[in-house]
């Protein structure tokens, strides 16, 4: 007995392929310490360390900091949202 093969159209996007698709565009990163970063993704590596450009660091206590180009350690990244602008939904 063999396993049923997946239909041809079923071609799921792997998590890191999603990140790769975001290279060159704006992303929103939520860290596991409640900090957030918004910026353009320039590149990343296997650990999902990220190079970001025109970055806003959003700290719930310290507020916003702007930086031109950073290497963000992937260790504390919790979530990455393509096209995100860091804005909360009202209400």
């Amino acid at each position, binding site marked *: 007995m063999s396993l049923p093969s997946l239909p041809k159209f079923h071609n799921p996007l*792997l998590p890191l392929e999603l990140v790769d698709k975001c290279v060159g565009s704006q992303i929103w990163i939520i860290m596991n310490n409640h900090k957030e970063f918004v910026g353009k993704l320039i590149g990343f590596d296997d650990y999902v360390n990220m*190079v970001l450009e025109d970055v806003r660091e959003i700290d719930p206590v310290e507020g916003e900091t702007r930086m031109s*180009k950073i290497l963000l350690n992937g260790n504390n990244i919790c979530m990455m949202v393509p096209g995100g602008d860091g804005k909360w939904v009202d209400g």
Partner: protein
Amino acid sequence: MATNGDSPDTPAADTSRDPSGFLSEIIGAPVTVKLNSGIVYKGDLQSVDGYMNIALERCKEWANGKVVRSWGDAFVRGNNVSYISADNA
């Protein structure tokens, strides 16, 4: 890539835009290093390794927009680093 070895378009393939390419670009330049604890160090980036261990020259510790401590050379252990920012990129 570790989890996606045989994908035709491995993200890590383009070395000009990935983290190691960025780091080689900014070696010797003034940088800001922020730790997970919130402490900020500014100095000239002497070197970085794969653990994100960092060697800084003329390193200064900043808090609330002011220098609070000053060192010559400093080693920062990589596990504490949140980000490395190029000051004049």
